[in-house]
């Protein structure tokens, strides 16, 4: 049950994108015109297949809507309590911490994941490449608790990496670096795979043009490939960030403290009871929706995807 909020949030992100694409295609270009046309032909032909699909889809979307509605009615019925919880320094601090740790993880991913994605995109198929791809995907298929345990065992004080790093003063257990590294682990496939897709879409042809004009490998990457993949990079970063800030089980194993938002909700659910945790959750929903909406809006100013090849 406590793991539900992050995955629901993820779903929200996905469906949000998909419905936008579909509605953009179907409804654009004169809703009224199509309505009168529909009236004229009403009763003549009904595609029962599509109607059936819509009903089944509505059941799925309905669950999300109902869940949000039930929470919203309860919360909006008592705005004073909601406001009190939302503005408490504990909640604000936790939200900021979660977002910052997520951003930090994404920055590290951009630094290390981008080169990996490029190599994977350009490498010829081979057994070794297949193995690396599978390793990249491991966090996707593991239960989150297993991921958390893996991270904990490696980065704990006596872990293979935790021990030497704590020697130079970098502690992971119950500390900010622990949160970041756990988020990094679970979010990495989202970033790497999206970025790789972007690189794969840049034709080798374009790189060859740059190289024949005298650019070295890195210059080609910097001036041609990366600028043409900016949109994918941005999308990958958003996916990864969304995944990172929603993480719970992966993080608590190594860093129960400081409270990230999912830990805080779980903690207040088990101690203060349903009312407080519900208010925090509702606040998080509002903030997340707002932030993701803004980030999506910003995508539009990005990318040179109309390059002719």
């Amino acid at each position, binding site marked *: 049950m406590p793991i539900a909020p992050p995955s629901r949030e993820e779903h929200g992100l996905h469906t949000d994108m998909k419905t936008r694409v579909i509605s953009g295609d179907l409804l654009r270009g004169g809703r009224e015109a199509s309505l009168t046309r529909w009236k004229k032909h009403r009763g003549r032909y009904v595609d029962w297949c599509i109607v059936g699909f819509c009903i089944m889809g509505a059941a799925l979307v309905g669950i999300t809507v109902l869940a949000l509605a039930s929470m919203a009615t309860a919360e909006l019925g008592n705005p004073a309590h909601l406001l009190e919880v939302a503005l408490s320094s504990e909640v604000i601090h936790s939200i900021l911490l979660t977002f910052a740790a997520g951003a930090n993880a994404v920055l590290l991913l951009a630094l290390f994941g981008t080169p990996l994605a490029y190599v994977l995109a350009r490498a*010829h198929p081979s057994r070794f490449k297949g193995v690396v791809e599978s390793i990249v995907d491991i966090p996707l298929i593991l239960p989150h608790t297993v991921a958390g345990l893996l991270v904990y065992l490696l980065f704990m004080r006596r872990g293979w990496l935790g021990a030497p790093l704590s020697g130079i003063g970098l502690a992971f257990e119950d500390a900010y670096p622990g949160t970041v590294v756990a988020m990094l682990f679970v979010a990495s496939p989202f970033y790497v795979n999206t970025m790789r897709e972007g690189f794969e879409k840049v034709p080798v042809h374009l790189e*060859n*043009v740059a190289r024949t004009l005298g650019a070295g490998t890195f210059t080609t990457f910097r001036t041609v490939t990366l600028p043409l993949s900016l949109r994918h990079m941005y999308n990958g970063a958003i996916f990864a960030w969304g995944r990172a800030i929603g993480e719970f089980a992966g993080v608590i194993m190594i860093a129960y403290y400081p409270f990230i938002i999912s830990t805080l909700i779980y903690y207040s659910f088990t101690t203060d009871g349903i009312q407080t945790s519900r208010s925090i959750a509702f606040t998080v929903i509002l903030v997340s929706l707002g932030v993701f909406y803004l980030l999506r809006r910003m995508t539009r100013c990005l990318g040179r995807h*109309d390059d*002719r090849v």
Partner: protein
Amino acid sequence: MMAIIEAHDITKFYGNLRVLHDVDLSVGKGEILALIGPSGSGKSTLLRVLDLIEPANGGEISVFGIDVVQERGRWLDLRRRMGMLFQRPIVFNASVYDNVAMGLRYRGASGEDIERKVKEALEAVGLSRYIKSKATDLSGGEQQRVALSRVLVTDPEILFLDEPTANLDPTSTATIERIVTGLNREAGMTVLISTHDLSQGQRLAHRIAVMIDGTIAQTGPSREVFREPKDRRIARFVGAENIIPARVVSRSNGFTIVEAHGRQMLSATPPPAEEVEMVARGEDISLHRREPEHEEAENRFPATVTRIEPTAPFVNVTVHCGCDLVALVTARRAEALGLREGMEVWVSLQAKAVHLIRR
């Protein structure tokens, strides 16, 4: 002539697919060499290998006298002395100016230098008025001219052209050909052009290399490649209309007498074998109303017109004289002769236009 590119025994694989094998090629400084061959014969791959974009899997290559297999570290420097124009016009979604400036920026040229050279290069391809336009808004032919000036602005010593005019209108094609031949004459630029347009190869090149099935089958001056193909595949590719099995009968006065379907013919080629194939180009076969004088040609004989096929501006005329021969006649000449099927005509064919290859 000093060789600027020397390639020996090159092999190239894509996975299990062998695209190049046993490629031997030498390109002289200041030469225009045309690489002709059917699509998929490996022309583009060879150009990419020679331009040092892709490594070969085997063989020896030296460019500018430097062994590039040994000196992998110098590839970027060497590549900066060469340029390549691709088949599809590729421009980046930026201004024409920025597109043309790319190569200079990669070389770290100064701002003034870039501006001066870009303006010159655009002037040369006749696109000065588009300097501020977005390159992707231009037409295909204009884009290819932008791409050409983008290469030329870097002053390459060797220019590779990979079917540069395959998708272009005749005007843009002519512009590009004019610029390339001009640079070759005036600046001594070495040019390697791949094309499947035979006439373009003949028009531009000093020397032609025929590429078939991943290897170079024949090199030589265009007259030699077109009139004296080494084997059947080359003969077919260079468009010899008549490839007829024949048998060597005897040799006299420097001529070889061959017999095909009971018709004896003289050839100037020494017999390569007993069983041969006779190769003759359609345009070398002349048709006449009356028996031609003997100065006209060594081979003269009557024949019957069996098929007339107009392919403007020429007419393919098939005549039967024991064997079937296809003659290429101008439309005007066909009219003057009053050609029609079933008509009796005289055929003349010079002995040196009858080439013999091993069967």
